[in-house]
């Protein structure tokens, strides 16, 4: 803090003002009749002024002292704020650097997952195409038993390929590499697309799939990803419903969302497994007994996709009585 110029110091100003006042009063009182002796007059007034002056000086000095203390505190606060600001800048820089490192790590993980998937797929494709080639070109030289074995190898290989694809999707979901598009979509059409893809499989098991006829508003979603969700849920329903069963797709329109409901008359999920349903690699005991070919990743990935759309997915199920899955999607894109 700068020192005040001597002439502007409070002390000097006080002295000057009182001196001026003193002289003015002296001149005013000089011809007074109250006290005749001029020296007594001068003494009395001087003592009076000295007392007043001392008192004022004390008051002003205290004021100056408290101002100085206040300034010191202010300086301290300013210094602390400067320190805090420096700390905030340092933290911000550290966070930015940490964020950059995390993004690089995500990118590395994403590249690793992509490369790993590629490397895993290459031999699987070799088996797939090799079997295609043998069954195409050499089927005349194969016995029925040999053809059956090769067909079974092909099915197992297809499961492996699907597992790699699901693993890749689940890893991409976890590292946030799955980006969702936002297109304006008629969700009922999307459900019907998914149903048409699976209607053949349903027919093989004599399972009837029906879709509720209802008018719905368009919603902003990634059509490819959400179709995957519907396909996964419908596939599960078909796979875990015995022959002759039913799968119903219904819809519910709320003020700000649309809910798609997929109900089946399948084997249901035991209650003690309900909280595992959306975890990785979940397969209920009933599914394994039915020898279904799921990888256990479909619901994990589906949940990830729905949640990335700010939607919700849940279910109700009773063992032996069937399952109902709900997918709720917002109508407007969250801003």
């Amino acid at each position: 803090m700068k020192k005040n110029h001597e002439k502007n110091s409070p002390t000097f100003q006080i002295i000057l003002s009182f001196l001026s006042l003193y002289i003015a009063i002296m001149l005013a009182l000089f011809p007074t009749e109250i006290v005749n002796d001029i020296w007594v007059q001068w003494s009395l007034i001087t003592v009076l002024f000295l007392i007043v002056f001392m008192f004022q000086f004390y008051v002003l000095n205290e004021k100056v002292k408290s101002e100085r203390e206040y300034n010191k505190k202010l300086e301290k606060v300013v210094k602390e704020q400067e320190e805090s600001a420096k700390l905030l800048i340092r933290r911000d820089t550290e966070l930015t650097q940490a964020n950059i490192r995390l993004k690089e790590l995500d990118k590395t993980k994403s590249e690793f997952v992509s490369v790993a998937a590629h490397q895993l797929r290459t031999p699987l494709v070799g088996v797939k195409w090799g079997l295609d080639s043998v069954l195409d070109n050499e089927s005349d030289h194969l016995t029925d038993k040999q053809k059956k074995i090769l067909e079974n190898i092909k099915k197992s290989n297809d499961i492996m390929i699907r597992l790699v694809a699901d693993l890749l999707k689940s890893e991409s979901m976890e590292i946030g590499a799955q980006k969702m598009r936002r297109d304006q979509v008629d969700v009922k059409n999307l459900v019907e697309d998914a149903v048409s893809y699976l209607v053949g499989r349903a027919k093989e098991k004599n399972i009837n799939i029906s879709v509720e006829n209802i008018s719905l508003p368009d919603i902003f979603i990634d059509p490819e990803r959400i179709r995957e969700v519907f396909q996964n849920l419908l596939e599960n329903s078909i796979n875990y419903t015995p022959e002759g069963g039913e799968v119903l797709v219904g819809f519910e329109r709320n003020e700000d969302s649309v809910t798609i409901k997929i109900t089946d008359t399948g084997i249901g999920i035991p209650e003690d497994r309900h909280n595992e349903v959306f975890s990785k690699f979940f397969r209920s005991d009933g599914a394994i007994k039915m020898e279904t070919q799921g990888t256990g990743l479909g619901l994990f990935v589906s949940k990830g996709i729905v949640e990335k759309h700010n939607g919700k997915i849940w279910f109700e199920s009773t063992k032996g009585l069937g399952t109902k899955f709900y997918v709720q999607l917002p109508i407007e894109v969250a801003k």
Partner: protein
Amino acid sequence: MTDEEKKLSEDNKTNSNQYSSKQILLVEDDDFLGELLEKKLSNSNLMVSRVKSGGEAFSFLKNNQASLIVLDIVLPQMDGYEILSKLKSDEDIKDIPVIFLSNLGQRYNIEKGESLGAEEFLVKSEVSLDEIVLKIKKVLDKFSL
């Protein structure tokens, strides 16, 4: 196989000679997969030549015509994206349609391929040899119109 593909397969069985003059350039560095593809395409009455890298592909195209290029992505020295970019910047060969055939199948891989001008992006593990032939014939039909 979709209904469309079934129909195309039936049509192609009766019109097998229409593709016999079409030269397919296959860029695939994996010998086993390359041989399987070559055999399948030849058996489908398509003329096919296989190379294993971008350099070999450009050398081939200097001296030969190609009606379509089937291009892998993970290749030695130059990847499929780079090869396609160079193809598209060469006036003499930029109009040859390209189908990517790769085991990379993430959305960003597919979008990148399409943005560079590929006609189709096929993920090897998701298509059978029959489906590859159908896609090739579909693109050839599109470009012969």
